[in-house]
């Protein structure tokens, strides 16, 4: 048998562990049903819930897509707003003192309470739902970006000043990269919140069908299999969003996991248009 390369092997082990975790949860779920002798209408088995999803997939596919769209768009809007707010707030103490209390207040307002005014403002379309999702996502992003920008080594700022750095270049090359890791911490939290935001949005401010509204209907008709089927799908969306952020993070911050720069990134330092000079043959063929 050919030996498996260590990188692939590591990845396989991690996938196996994740699957084992899911299996464990499903096992416990079954155990609870057996031990407490629960009837299927009270708590269906996860297999039954998944099977219900599969049977009903022709309907559910469209609903899932709808909810995924709300989650994704709302997440991006929230992340962008959060990032820009964080940067703006870090630029000026006055802005920060002014805006921070407002941010905290915004999170204390029950989202459900905002639904009615949002619907009155924006109607029953996509927009109020996106606002609700973005509303839940932007807060952890702002807080983490602010922390990241505040915690940059002051000596690094001093060094860049001593080098005569231009403000914009200093921002791009020092402050921005230093914010990436905390930014992704915020994005990971936000990604898991986003689905909940989408469901609340569908319940309170929607005429369109999505997994959230499906969940509501199933609940009203005591269709517990449908309820758990939808819940499993929603959970899967949340987990997938989180994993997408983990993947994006490892792409965006290669220095945290890699020893050498990726090949494609190596030439980046020399992108300018100056003529190639044969006197100095440039080399970039160093092994990993």
């Amino acid at each position: 048998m050919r030996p498996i390369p260590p990188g692939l092997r590591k990845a396989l082990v991690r996938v196996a562990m994740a699957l084992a975790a899911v299996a464990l949860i499903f096992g416990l779920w079954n155990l609870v049903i057996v031990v407490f002798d629960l009837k299927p209408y009270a708590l269906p088995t996860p297999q039954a819930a998944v099977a219900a999803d599969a049977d009903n997939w022709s309907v559910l596919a469209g609903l899932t897509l709808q909810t995924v769209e709300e989650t994704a768009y709302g997440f991006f809007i929230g992340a962008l707003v959060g990032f820009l707010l964080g940067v703006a707030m870090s630029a000026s103490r006055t802005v920060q003192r002014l805006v921070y209390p407002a941010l905290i207040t915004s999170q204390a307002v029950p989202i459900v309470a905002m639904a009615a005014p949002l619907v009155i403002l924006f109607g029953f379309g996509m927009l109020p739902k996106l606002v609700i999702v973005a509303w839940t996502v932007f807060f952890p992003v702002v807080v983490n970006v602010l922390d990241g920008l505040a915690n940059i080594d002051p000596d690094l700022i001093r060094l860049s000043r001593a080098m005569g750095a231009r403000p914009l270049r200093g921002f791009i090359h020092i402050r921005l990269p230093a914010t990436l890791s905390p930014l992704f911490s915020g994005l990971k939290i936000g990604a898991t919140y986003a689905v909940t935001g989408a469901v609340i949005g569908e319940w309170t401010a929607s005429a369109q069908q999505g997994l959230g509204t499906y969940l509501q209907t199933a609940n009203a008709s005591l269709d517990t299999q449908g309820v758990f089927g939808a819940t499993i799908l929603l959970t899967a969306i949340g987990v997938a969003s989180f994993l997408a952020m983990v993947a994006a993070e490892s792409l965006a911050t290669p220095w945290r996991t890699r020893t050498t720069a990726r090949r494609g990134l190596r030439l980046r330092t020399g992108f300018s248009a100056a003529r190639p000079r044969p006197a100095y043959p440039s080399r970039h063929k160093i092994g990993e």
Partner: protein
Amino acid sequence: MVEDVTCRFEGTLALDHLSLEVDRSEFVSIVGPSGCGKSTLFNTISGLLRPACGRVMLDGRDVTGETGHVGYMLQKDLLVPWRTVVGNIVLGAALTRGVTRRDREEAEALATRYGLGDFLHHYPHALSGGMRQRVALMRTLALHKDVLLLDEPFGALDSQTRLEMQMWLLSVCEDLNATILFVTHDVDEAIFLADRVVVMSGRPGRVLEEIPIPLPRPRDLEALTAPRFIELKRQALGLLHGAGSEVPT
């Protein structure tokens, strides 16, 4: 070069009417007790800090409080973790005018020349302490300034690596024509590298004594144990520890 500089931090007097003249291409080591204001002096020369009074003159030009005139290597290596070795060396260009192909090629040539050819595209976390220090120094060299301020560049290294780095710096200096101000706690290092050793007093910092180092160049390990070296060392140590009787006159 530095005239009559005084610096205060909220009540603490860090530098007290300190004056220091440095010739072109001279290597001056600065020693002094911890907290005597050596880093403060460098912050002043580099323009990061505006002195309460006094001026910083560079080639007859008043540059007090202006940054970007000298190459300054701070007490920590401060490599940015998201840039590779080459990326870190060209940081100065990236922060001021944008990196050109030429900058990158020069950085690669520098790194290759000084023993980091196999690590051009490594991230700093994958380098040893000595390598990081070398990269930080190359980054300072790549700024192409006539004056370099090096604040305890080898402070964090073990004595073996430290000695290697000192030899390396000597060889760099031979290639270079820069004026270098070098802060260290190590009297051996100060004498081994410099044309002149400036001994500073405890806080508030003043120049206590300037010791010319007439040891011939190029210097090698032999120089460290030469009788002349020992004599200079005794003089410097005597001044540093305030024991006037030990100072041979």
